[in-house]
């Protein structure tokens, strides 16, 4: 399956992406994740100012098939929330990497991101699970 995995982002085993810009970063779920979930009908987001540790559940998405937790790829404080997703959750299906970012965070420890997968490792990881 040709899932999109753009360069310039790092990927988690639980199918989130994180894109670093200085000390702040955007976080969302991957094309593979939205494809597995199918049509997303609901999303629950944190509020600006919330702090989470790496791998903490910070959001929930619900599709016609299942509900799924979304984990934060690195510890940090939420500085901005893409609240538009609550009214337009289908954006996660159509534009998972750009329009449908979930939160912007201040990253506490950038080295936590270096441990994640890059685009080419992640696409192999997706393919290995879909056989």
């Amino acid at each position, binding site marked *: 399956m040709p899932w999109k995995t753009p360069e310039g982002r790092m990927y988690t085993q639980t199918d989130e992406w994180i894109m670093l810009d200085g000390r702040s970063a955007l976080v969302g779920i991957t094309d593979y994740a939205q494809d597995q979930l*199918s*049509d997303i*009908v*609901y999303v629950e987001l944190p509020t600006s100012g919330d702090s989470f540790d790496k791998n903490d559940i910070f959001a929930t998405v*619900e599709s*016609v*098939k*299942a*509900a799924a937790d979304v984990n934060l790829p690195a510890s940090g404080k939420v500085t901005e929330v893409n609240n538009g997703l609550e009214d337009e*959750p*289908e954006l996660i299906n159509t534009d998972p990497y750009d329009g449908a970012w979930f939160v912007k965070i201040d990253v506490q420890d950038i080295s936590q991101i270096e441990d994640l997968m890059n685009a080419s490792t992640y696409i192999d990881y997706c393919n290995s699970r*879909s056989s």
Partner: protein
Amino acid sequence: MTTLDNIPEPTVYDLSSPGRSGVTLPKPDVPIQELPENILRDDLDLPELTQLDVIRHFQSLSQLNHSIDSGFYPLGSCTMKYNPRVNEDAARLIGFLHSHPLQDVNTVQGNLALMYELQEWLKEIGGFAAVTLQPAAGAHGELTGIMMMRNYHLARGDKSRLKILIPDSAHGTNPASTTMSGLEVIELPSDDRGNVDVDALRSYCGEDIVGLMITNPNTLGLFEEHIEEVVQIVRDCGGLIYGDGANMNALTGIVRPGDLGFDVMHYNLHKTFSTPHGGGGPGSGPVGVSERLVDFLPTPIVTIVEKGNDQDPPLYGFATPKHTIGRMKAFNGQFGVLVRAYTYIRVHGAAGLRSNSEHAVLNANYLLSKVQDVYHVPYKRACLHEFVVEGRWHDAPDIHALDISKRLMDFGFHPPTNYFPLIVHEALMIEPTETESRETLDKFADALLQIANEARDEPELLLTAPHITPSARMDEIQAARQLVLCCRPSYLLDPQYVKK
């Protein structure tokens, strides 16, 4: 596509006509007291229909529906077995039917005797020390069980245990009940044979664990091959074992969960013990416990207050366990359902219950053997009472489990459970139960095989299914994104409408 404009039966509000009524009230024989002006309302939107209108409306709705009485219903993990009519006869015996939960216990000794015996039988069937009949359904039983487990640790002065281990194949109610109890869920992965990953379990076990919630056979329909080791690992770190009894129809009369070391388990009377469900009646989720949790059971428990003798039956009454978690439900559970389950057990006896489980397992394996060459089976093992296959093929890329399910409706079958368990791609979970004949199983297998061919040759047939049902395919996405919680007359939706 079905929309609000072409639903086959109007809502009861749309059938309403001002001034119609289904009853004629007698003249009051007490002085009439006017209600205060400030609490009078004219916007309650109550429908106004004759009795015949109402009867025809609900009769029509019932005929649009699929039920176990109208056809095969292989909904995995739900055990949609036949509901024997003798259960209904027993539940309609006047003494049961007309009793009231507030009656003096001396006047309802028969009801209490039935509850006491049912408690005793469920103890014996599950290998438990005591049973409560209070919980109103399976998930309510889970909540009851988790609360007892938590209180067990607290009563020992151990306040550090806040986590419950739950396999990734579990019913969604398990993490929900845990969260409702204020505890944290730790998800356990499954191994490549569909069992709990024992190494992962070992790595998570510690002094912060309340216990493990486990379903056996699990939702893949597979018996946990390392169950004794799993129980021992959790025991060794001081945890308790919760058994989700949803799949007990595979084991009744064969394996007693209490003997495996389970401390708590809920039964689903509406699954294993043949009482109606799925819109047909309330559930009921009695919970059995091991010795260590007896004192924590909900209050009250039915007990013998005075022993009987050759002439007189015992006197039944209620008792409150020493460290009870309190009351989980008003009165004494779903009594009418308890009567039906009691009847089922009484009719079948020990040998009959075992035979039913054996036939449930046989039927599932028969069906599995007929479809496994065409539908991919993720964990290739003999199944118990249900099995899970993948509803997808690489050479039919547009077809999903949902399309197969919708197409099955054209053959007159209720679809299997879809997209669960979550660890299987495009899961179709099929549970035939023991009450289906070989002919029905053959017809269902033939339908599945035909649909697999259609998926390659005529995919449109699947993608546009169902074709013969009263409603065409529903727009699930729109329904979830834009909830219309109807039950208002349609004239209120009209922007031109002016309130009287």
